[in-house]
């Protein structure tokens, strides 16, 4: 009885989410979150079919496994089978089920025990499927669970049909960094604090990825590990295929020197160097660097090149900080709350600069922020909760910085 009440409530929530929210992508990801939560599940994904290629790709997924870059041919695997047949599949025990091949979640850090996969049927076609994986309590899904999923899938499909979701699935992206089952523990006295509890994430080249999460969720720790500023406790980290799971300090320094640019919340410019000198200071680290003046020009700070940080506003300092980050031509720029200390207008200027950098430099930017509005301009939005990836959302239509409002 209690279960059915909970499911009823979840159904209403899903309906409300899908009907009231203007942004369909948010509506779908919100619905997926509701159903994953209602079913006390470990992970979930909404797969959409690209009619042009007849391939399925996950547009939203929740859980510790990053399946963003997975693409499945229609008809193959459980997801393809459901989409192809339009019929729901219920895998009570994956290990004993011949239909289950383990290529999606299991290959990306999540061991599948039980699964529900229901089709997204609009009036005419099957456009994809909704997939829910593993019960958190270790139990198995039942028919009622599947019923809730089917209900949600129906509502979602109708909504998509009504509001029109243009699925423009990109080609498979080239992976820059891969995090697999990353954990990070801190020893404080006798107690061990687990900050990251098994993070799986792929960071692609030339993408703008925003990491959201509440304070203390582990997002900064994750970014620090990606940025080579901290050592992981366990798991596997590869950068461009090279294993950085257990690097030496020298390796990490070299990695940061060659791969990483960093934009700090507090700018952290050298107070005794001018804008230009601050950029030069970092540029000199690598042989193949951008001209420092050019870097400043890219952030529209040429006119202040001789100014010291103390003579510039926060926004200007942050733009110099961006110039400093790009001057090395890094493959990955990490930005830690770069607009947190700035007002709206200045923040937009800074975000615009970052957007331009991604667009023109082909650099990957990974930004940690509390500001969910900024997430709208990201290619992907990773939500971190309690030391794990809570969800990864692919923005089908990222906004421009100028379009953001908060």
């Amino acid at each position, binding site marked *: 009885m209690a279960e059915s009440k909970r499911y009823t409530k979840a159904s209403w929530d899903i309906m409300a989410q899908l009907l009231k929210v203007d942004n369909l992508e948010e509506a779908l990801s919100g619905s997926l979150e509701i159903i994953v939560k209602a079913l006390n599940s470990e992970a979930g994904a909404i797969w959409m079919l690209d009619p042009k290629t007849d391939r399925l790709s996950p547009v939203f997924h929740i859980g510790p496994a990053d399946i963003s870059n997975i693409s499945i041919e229609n008809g193959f695997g459980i997801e393809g089978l459901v989409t192809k047949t339009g019929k729901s599949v219920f895998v009570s025990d994956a290990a004993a089920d011949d239909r289950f091949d383990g290529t999606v979640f299991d290959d990306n850090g999540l061991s599948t025990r039980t699964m529900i996969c229901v089709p997204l049927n609009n009036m005419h076609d099957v456009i994809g499927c909704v997939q829910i994986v593993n019960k958190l309590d270790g139990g198995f899904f039942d028919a009622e669970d599947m019923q809730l999923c089917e209900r949600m899938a129906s509502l979602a499909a109708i909504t998509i049909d009504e509001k029109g979701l243009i699925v423009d699935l990109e080609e498979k992206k080239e992976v820059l960094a891969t995090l697999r089952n990353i954990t990070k523990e801190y020893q404080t006295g006798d107690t061990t604090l687990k900050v990251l509890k098994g993070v799986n994430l792929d960071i692609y080249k030339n993408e703008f990825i925003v990491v959201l999460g509440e304070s203390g969720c582990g997002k*900064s720790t994750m970014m620090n590990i990606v940025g080579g500023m901290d050592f992981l406790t366990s798991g596997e980290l590869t950068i461009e295929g090279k294993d950085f799971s257990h690097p030496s300090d020298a390796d990490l320094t070299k990695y940061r020197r060659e791969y990483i640019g960093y934009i700090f919340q507090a700018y952290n410019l050298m107070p*005794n160097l001018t804008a230009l000198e601050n950029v030069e*200071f970092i540029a000199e680290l690598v042989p193949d660097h951008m001209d420092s003046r050019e870097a400043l020009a890219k952030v529209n700070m040429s006119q202040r090149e001789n100014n010291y940080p103390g003579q510039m506003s926060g926004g200007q300092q942050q733009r110099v900080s961006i110039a400093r980050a790009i001057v090395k031509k890094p493959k990955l720029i990490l930005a830690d709350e770069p607009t947190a200390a700035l007002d709206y207008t200045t923040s937009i200027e800074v975000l615009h600069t970052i957007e331009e950098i991604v667009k023109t430099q082909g650099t990957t930017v990974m930004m940690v922020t509390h500001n969910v509005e900024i997430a709208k301009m990201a290619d992907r939005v990773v939500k971190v909760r309690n030391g794990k990836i809570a969800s990864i959302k692919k923005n089908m239509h990222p906004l421009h910085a100028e379009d953001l409002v908060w």
Partner: protein
Amino acid sequence: MKKTQIKDSLRNVKKNILSWISIIFIAGMAAAAYLGICYAAYSMRKAGNDFYEENRFRDLEITSTLLMTDADIEALKSDSGVRDAEGIFFTNARLRNGRQFQTVNIVSDTERVNTAKIVEGSLPKAPDECAVEQSIAEKMGYKVGDPLKACSDKGGIPEFMKGTDYKITGIILHPDHLSTPEIAPGNRYIIVTPEAFDLEKLDGCYMRAEILLKETEGLNRFSPEYLKKVDSATERLEKLAEERAAARTKEFKEISQARIDENQKKLDDAKKEIDEAKEKLDEGSAKLRISRIILDESRKTIEENEEKLSDTKALLDAVKLFLDDAEKGNLKAMEDLPPEQIEEIKAKAAEGKNEYEKNLAQYNAGVEKLKKAKEDLETGEKKYSEGLAEYEASEKKYNDGLAEYEANLAKLEDAKKELSGIRDCRWFIFNIESNAGYTHLSLSSDSISSLSITFSLFFVVIAALVIYTTIGRIVNEQRKLVGATKALGFFNREVLGKYLVFGISATVVGALIGIIVGFFIIQGVILTSYKNMYVIGQMPAKILIGTSLAGIGLAVALAVAAVTLSCMSLMRSTAMDLMREKQPKASSKEGGKSGSLYTRLIFRNMRSDLGRVIVTTVSIAGCCALLVTGFTMRNNAPGIIDKQYGEIIKYDEKLTFNPDASDTAAQDIEKILSGSGAKYIAVSSGYRAFRAGNDMEYTDLICGDISKLEEFYSFREWKTDNTIPADGDGVFIQCRTAESSGKNKGDEIIIYDETMDPFDVKVAGVFNNYCARNMVMSESAFEKFFHEAPKKNTYFILLNGADRAGLLEKLESVEGFEKLEATADEKERLSFVTGVFTKVALLMLAVAGLMAYFILLNITKMYVNSKQRELTVMRINGFTVKEAKNYLNRETIVTTVIGNILGVAVGALMGYIVMRFIEMPHLQFLRTPFLLGWLIGVALTVSFTAAINAFGLRKIKDLKLTDA
């Protein structure tokens, strides 16, 4: 402060524990150095004073040119300021025990002033008993109960003494000799009863008086108050001295005149007697002469008569024979004669026979007469002989009497001359500073105090700077927090309280640790160093409560001042200002544009954080300066040993003898020296009082042929280093004397002769001399200024391969030989004295090193902390640890270079000042810069900086990049 504020303050300490400990350490070091040295100086003075107090060491000592009478002593006692006065007798003597010789002073025992401290046994009670000073007993191997023979230089009874043999009743220490003989050479005492002296010879007069003053009672003899009181008492007693001296002069002259008159009368009487005797002698002589003549004439007459009688007898005998022949007719002539004629002839012959008989009877009467005359002559001759013998005896007696008379007359004339030439009696009042032991301890403790002032001031300044910087840095780090606290309604004083707790607690704990370290370690090392210099042995460690409290007070004041100063800007700023990010001072002109990026960056970093850079530089400079000072001390104190006993004193041995002991002493010694192959030069050497400034001082006045002295004793002119001119017209004084008195070439000083008569002597020049108090004069100058020829009593000897032991054995047999002192022993003594300064220098070096270590560690830590964010950003951007370290090292190099340059300059200056401070009137240290010390100081500072930097910068490797 409220409970939570206290909690917050304590947690602030906990959070900055390394800085807190650093301040403790630095404050502790400063306190330990200052207080330890203060304690040591105080303990030395206290121990010395206790010894003096226990033995009622005289405040004043008075000698007189005409000895001192009981009346003088009574007059002194009756002075309102005099607590007690006693007169003493003393004389010089020579001890011999097996092969050990020792020149000593035999001194009469005192009851109340300047009493001997019994170490073993008891003081002498009988005239044939004595007590010996411990140093003599140790050197000569005497024990209580042993016999002791004290002789004059000639081996007889010492002057003014009744005998030579004593029994040792005790081993003593004497307050006149606080220093050991190695430190303050000079005769030590044999104490005897006054009755052991021949008081008749002395007319019951004392040789000196020992005085205890009332106003000095309870005062430490090493305190300025004491000396001030003694000075005023001396001034007062000078008047009494004048009166007593005048009275003594009058009395002495009267007594002398009376003696002269009495002697004159005696002589006159004697003259009269002699004259009478002479008269009688002359009469006798005349009589004798007449008797002689008579006798001679009688003898002559007798001889003539005898001859005549003999002729008569012969004639008579011939006549008789003729007559007999004639009577018998036996004459040949008768043969041819007729018988009548023969008969006639016979008859006439018979008649002739009668005539013959008559003549024969006359002849016989003549013979009888002659016999009688002969007898009379013999009687006369006998009488004459007796008269002559009597005369000759009288004549001898007369001659003796005449000689005695003439001798007495000469003596009387001398006495008259002496009386007419006698100078007015003068008293010489010596205060405690005339005592070598006192002066040594006083100067030593002053040197130590000087060290404490110079070094400690330095430590305190550095400690203050470090506290200021440390607190400043902490406050700066907590700038926003302070702003927030102020915004929450805290008063400035409440905010300040937290940092005051930090600073005061650290400095007070540091001061307390400093007190303990200073008391036990610094003081311990210093007192142990001085232990063997004084007869009282290890001086007990004392603590100065007042000074210690003042030290803690100073530490608190320093902390309050440093904290208040460092928090000043924070206190003046508004809460909002503080909560905003602190921006460096903006200036378009700042930093310039020239040089490489790093050069500009370092320059600007230093300019923007000038306070820290200054403190870092000053701290490095301070450490370097301390090291340079320490090494300068370490070198310049013992450095004089080789100078003094290598470049100046070149002789191997110094022989002293008493030229009055034997007329041939000098020849005998020279014969032995020549025979051994040793080289030598004879000089006159003796202690003379002199007055170059206000005080009377003593010096060893050496007089000899300066042109020949160079080989033995190199007198070099101060500053020019040229050999002093052999014909210098006056006395050459040593550098320290010139400095302390301000006298120089051409000035005049007063030198007293042995009878304390003053002579104005021109200063002929100034020469280099590092230890002892010497003056030198040419023989001609000596004669010119002292109006007498110098009496040679010393030989400077170059052994030149001669066997010292063999030489000594031979020399000991020479009458008048006193001692043979090896330069090596002198050198060892000097080494012992300078060794103390070396130890103190090492102590200072250790403290400086430790302090340098902690200061630099603290500064480096603060520096890294201040640059933590920049370093993190650099590390995040890919700077390697080495590159990040180099970024900081560049500034460290600049501050180290500047600090070392400053440090060497300050250290060289401080080294010079410290050495000048600790110099004593008889001890001058090297004053030349010790370049190697500079280099070592710099090298150590650089090494320290490098090592500490390496240690401090390790943090860069562990920087949490996630904290940016």
